[in-house]
């Protein structure tokens, strides 16, 4: 190695050191969201994300919204790569269609954090980490909520439960169901899960599913639904049929579920806050840039909420 190359190498090193310290002082993080206007979860998420970024003087953010359009999201990914942001957070409009765009970012050495719902497995090699809710834990916590209530009522040895799951094929639906199915026999081995039917995240559909359950089974003690929207549909079916004393447990506490809990008709759910979701995504991106060792899957906590402790939680905005 002659002097010139050594010089070049050291100056290059010095450059990267300077570059590194600059990046540590202020980092630019771009986010492309799914569809902000479509529901208040996403709207609240965006507000919380911007607020969290403004509170942190080390971070500048470029906030983009794909409007639910895959083509626009891919274009936004390309633009963020071109702007040479330090990291990109993506809330995928489609878990597979964005993979090539994510690969481009990874080729440009820009770490990508996936937020809220993960991309398909084919894209994992190009992603730094995932930040979002742990749906398996959510399912098992719902099972625990239900079992605890049965024990309190003294029916843990005879109770019969039906399940209304989310849309078939959706990771969230599959994982929540798995969490519930696995955990229930562990905590309440004598409770029978009699049947599971999909409610497709849809309140009307799940009301129909519940109507069918009520005709089919004379004895139903508990209903687990993949989210509160479907849970309230099932509740409406039970109310219409005049069947009391059924314990309803859901997931992703919606405002309608919270209200039904206030009325004492609905027992419990899982509290998933868009504010926590947004903060977790930003934190994951920052820690990735700071070079911290992170697990591939970074979950934020989604606590249990029941009629007993609902006073600790504010009513969901969605």
């Amino acid at each position: 190695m002659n002097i010139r190359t050594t010089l070049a190498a050291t100056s290059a090193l010095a450059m990267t050191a300077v570059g590194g310290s600059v990046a540590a002082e202020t980092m630019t993080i771009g986010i492309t969201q799914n569809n902000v206007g479509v529901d208040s979860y996403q709207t609240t998420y965006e507000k919380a994300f911007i607020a969290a970024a403004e509170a942190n003087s080390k971070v500048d953010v470029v906030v983009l919204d794909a409007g639910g359009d895959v083509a626009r999201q891919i274009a936004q990914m390309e633009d963020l790569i071109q702007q040479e942001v330090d990291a990109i957070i993506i809330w995928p409009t489609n878990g597979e269609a964005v993979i090539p765009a994510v690969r481009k970012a990874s080729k440009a050495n820009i770490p990508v954090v996936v937020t809220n719902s993960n991309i398909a497995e084919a894209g994992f090699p190009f992603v730094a980490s995932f930040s979002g809710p742990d749906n398996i834990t959510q399912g098992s916590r719902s099972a625990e909520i239900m079992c605890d209530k049965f024990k309190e009522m003294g029916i843990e040895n005879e109770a019969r439960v039906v399940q209304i799951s989310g849309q078939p094929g959706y990771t969230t639906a599959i994982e929540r169901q798995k969490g519930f199915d696995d955990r229930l026999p562990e905590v309440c081995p004598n409770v029978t899960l009699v049947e599971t039917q999909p409610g497709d995240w849809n309140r009307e559909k799940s009301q129909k599913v519940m109507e069918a359950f009520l005709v089919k089974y004379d004895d139903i003690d508990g209903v687990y639904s993949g989210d509160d929207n479907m849970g309230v549909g099932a509740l409406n079916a039970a109310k219409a049929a005049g069947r009391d004393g059924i314990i309803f447990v859901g997931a992703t506490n919606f405002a309608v579920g919270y209200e039904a809990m206030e009325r004492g008709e609905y027992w419990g759910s899982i509290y998933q806050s868009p504010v926590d979701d947004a903060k977790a995504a930003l934190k994951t991106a920052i820690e990735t840039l700071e070079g911290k060792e992170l697990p591939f899957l970074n979950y934020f906590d989604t606590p249990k909420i029941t009629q007993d402790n609902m006073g600790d939680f504010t009513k969901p905005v969605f």
Partner: protein
Amino acid sequence: MQAGTLSTFLKRGAIWGFILFELIFFSVAGAFLSLSDKAFMDLDNMLRLFKQSAPIGIIAMGMTIIMINGNIDLSVGATFALCAIVLLDSLTWPIFAGLGDWVIPVSWALALLTGVLLGAINGLIVWKTGVDAFIVTLGSMLGYRGLVFMYNGEQPTSHLNWTLVDFAETQFLGLHTATWFLLAVTLVIWFLMTRTIHGRNAYAIGDNREAAVNAGIRVGPHMMINFMIIGFLAALSAVVFYSESGSVNPNDGELYELWIITAVVLGGTKLTGGAGSVISTFGGVLAIQLLRKGLGHIGADTSTVNLVIGLILIAVLYLDRQLNRKGAEELKI
């Protein structure tokens, strides 16, 4: 200088003037507001502009002919999604299993054929029933979208083929694959509209359908061909775009018809037919994508894009009216 030359020049040049304005505005504003050190008019960024314009741009060329004809096609977004499903799904059909990667051209052909067929259905109904194209394609927009949802419910249809992705990401002479398609389509449609009998007939029919019939132009078949062309282009746009992304949501392409019509109208084509230019439509498409990129570049809220485009659209139509008719039809209430 002949009377009206100036106004013609203004009309033709308006969209390019607007694009120039956007470029200057975003470059200057970007220097102050953007978090990025890269200039907005960076060469790569400008090349990517063409590529990102392709999905809407390719279809907009077909829409220009349709609108010069005095018709409209609202079903293009649904056609786009349906052809994408045919493309991605047919890649895994068992009958093609023996073909290996040669299944790709077969799937392309199937998707393009689907587009032509869907366009032909629109055209045939418009021709044989005489119902206004707006109503016919409103119906087929809902119908084709229904087929999309019937195919796979609310779930995405996916097939990620890296050979296909690599092809779509290739840059030949610095331009992306999608850009080449956009440029080629623009050139072909420009040739069709300015250098062929079919093109001249399109203007004649849009200008005065009665006169065109009297002049012996077979209006029905002519319109049907145009609907087949736009169906083909919607399919081509899907082929180009989904080769790169590999997965289609059932609501993909929704509202594309409105963005496309906006681009065509920005380019100065009249909703009533009889006037319009393919090259100006190209300008309209670029103007919209430039606005989306630019507002993202300076960190403006992305939803302001819609507001700004809405305002510009009204301004363009007002200017057009002033330049053409000197406000003769102003509502005097």
